């Protein structure tokens, strides 16, 4: 029995590979007037939800800007934050969010058959628009990832600037990686390694559950570790916020330089007024600047070259490259158990050469992608070193709009009353 069924499958295997549409069993010839039912095809519910979500997003952004800039109330902001965590996080399960939408926009450029949903475009654009005027109000009360970190922060530890500064570059690099992988069709890494998805979906793979646990534990003592040191959309918001025309101002009247707000800020975003002796003489500043700019060009070139050579290794994440690697391994050692992807490849009956050709083409294109990523990393690092040499004059304590999450903590700490008196 076993042998016959084996023989039968062996016989049928070439047939399987041949054509998809040949009939094995003849179509029935009903005489009883039987009507063929047709399978049900329920419509995507996402389409119904999408515009409602955009409405909620817009409303939440307006509310966040109003609460931070006009009401200056942390309590109300916390209510909004809890709502965002509940709605965008637990109810909508964290998809689609603005953080991941970067990849959709990139894919829409790279892949002709992919069309960006207008609601996804709105999710990408609206927080950036608000940042251009009011700073990162999206982070403060709307983003579900930020919300959960904001809510669990109990005892913020101060991270020294020399650690927080360079770590703040990671989002820009992560953004570069996300763009590279989304545009090459390798996948959406930002969504794949979304650290709070296991919480919002109440379950995930062991790796992601572990990652969620780690981030939640870190968020108890470090203010918004994901937002500050990883979030790729945060990098965009940071740049947009530098241009903010009406960012949150700490003191409602003239600042008295009491330092209370800076002590309160868990994100190290409040910069002190510049002291008189703080400013280096102009000629010294010029020399430092010139030196750093001189280093910048070789750095960018070096990282570009490095990226060119690292490209094929970076391409290993791409599923087609993975298949080619597994296929080559299984050809080398036919006795070893085949991976699922190799088995699927065998069943679909495509030629091995085709797979290797495709993978080689992807790896070639990743050389350019890797070089571009390297150049981007070089520019980011160079811009950071140059920015360190620049000193800007500040007359009072200011929340640096790029790193300020508009959490409204500092407002309550400020002793200045709107009429200029002190409390």
């Amino acid at each position, binding site marked *: 029995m076993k042998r016959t*069924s084996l023989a039968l*499958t062996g016989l*049928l295997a070439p047939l399987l590979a041949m054509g*998809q549409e040949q*009939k*094995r*069993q*003849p*179509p*029935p010839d*009903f*005489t*009883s007037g*039987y009507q*063929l*039912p*047709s*399978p049900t*095809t*329920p*419509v*995507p*519910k*996402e*389409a119904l939800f999408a515009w409602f979500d955009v409405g909620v997003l817009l409303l939440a952004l307006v509310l966040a800007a109003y609460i931070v800039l006009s009401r200056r109330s942390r309590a109300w902001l916390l209510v909004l934050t809890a709502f965002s965590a509940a709605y965008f996080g637990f109810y909508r*399960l964290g*998809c*689609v969010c603005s953080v*991941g*939408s970067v*990849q*959709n*926009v990139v894919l*829409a*450029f790279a892949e002709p058959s*992919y*069309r*960006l*949903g*207008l609601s*996804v475009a709105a999710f990408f*654009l609206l927080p950036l*628009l608000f940042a*251009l005027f009011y700073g990162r109000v999206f982070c403060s009360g709307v983003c579900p990832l930020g919300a959960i970190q904001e809510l669990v922060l109990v005892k913020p530890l101060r991270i020294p600037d020399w650690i927080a500064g360079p770590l703040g570059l990671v989002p820009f690099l992560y953004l570069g990686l996300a763009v590279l992988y989304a545009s090459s069709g390798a*996948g*959406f890494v930002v*969504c*794949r390694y979304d650290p709070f998805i296991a919480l919002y979906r109440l*379950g995930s793979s062991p790796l992601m559950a572990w990652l969620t646990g780690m981030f939640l534990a870190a968020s108890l003592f470090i203010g918004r570790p994901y937002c500050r040191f990883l979030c790729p959309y945060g990098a965009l918001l940071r740049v*947009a916020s530098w*241009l903010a*025309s009406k960012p949150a101002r700490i003191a409602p009247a003239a600042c008295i330089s009491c330092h209370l707000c800076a002590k309160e800020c868990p994100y190290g975003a409040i910069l002190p007024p510049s002291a008189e002796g703080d400013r280096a003489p102009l000629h010294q500043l010029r020399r430092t600047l010139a030196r750093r700019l001189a280093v910048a060009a070789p750095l960018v070139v070096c990282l570009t070259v490095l990226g060119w050579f690292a490209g094929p290794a970076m391409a290993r994440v791409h*599923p*087609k490259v993975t298949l080619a690697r597994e296929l080559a391994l299984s050809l080398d050692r036919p006795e070893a158990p085949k*991976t*699922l*992807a190799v*088995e*699927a490849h065998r*069943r679909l009956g495509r030629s091995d050469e085709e797979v290797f050709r495709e993978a080689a083409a992807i790896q070639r294109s990743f050389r350019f992608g890797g070089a571009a990523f390297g150049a981007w990393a070089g520019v980011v690092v160079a811009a950071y070193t140059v920015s360190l040499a620049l000193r800007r004059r500040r007359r009072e304590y200011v929340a640096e709009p790029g790193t300020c999450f508009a959490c409204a903590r500092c407002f309550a700490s400020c002793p200045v009353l709107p009429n200029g008196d002190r409390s």
Partner: protein
Amino acid sequence: MADEPKSRRAVLADGVRLLGLAATSGVLGALAAKSGARNMVWQIDPDLCTQCGKCATSCVLTPSAVKCVHSYALCGYCQLCFGLFRDKRAGNDLHAENLRCPTDAIRRRFVEDPYYEITIEEALCIGCGICVKGCGLFGNRSLQLQIRHDRCIGCNECSIARDCPSNAIRRVPASRPYLLRQRGGTR
């Protein structure tokens, strides 16, 4: 603010902000003009699916958003359905040991001699694809795995697509969200 003239910095920031606005709206306009922006949803291409079983386990939903869908127009209405019965069946009856489906989600109804109608009870189906594999072995491949859009929550990156060994899951326009085989090979 009003009494002192605008600083050079403020004017510059205004300019860059305007430029940023123009650039983003230009970019999105270009994307929207790309033959109409629209939502995409995930779907399984039955011709690429190898019924590895990942659909049942990799979906973020439990049970999975993937279900077996029956294209009646393709079905041979076989008395001995390979989607329903195991290859090494003990007998042609509906005892559990003879059936493929682990959740007993397949209903068989007598239509007329010798034809039987097979229906999938979706509430019980877990999308494991065992029946689909059986139907594909000797049958007309009328049983197919599809992502059911009343269940799919539309993750930005489908976690089944990521694990799918044959890359059978891709984005399709939401206006035509299913890739079911039809009679004559058209979709």
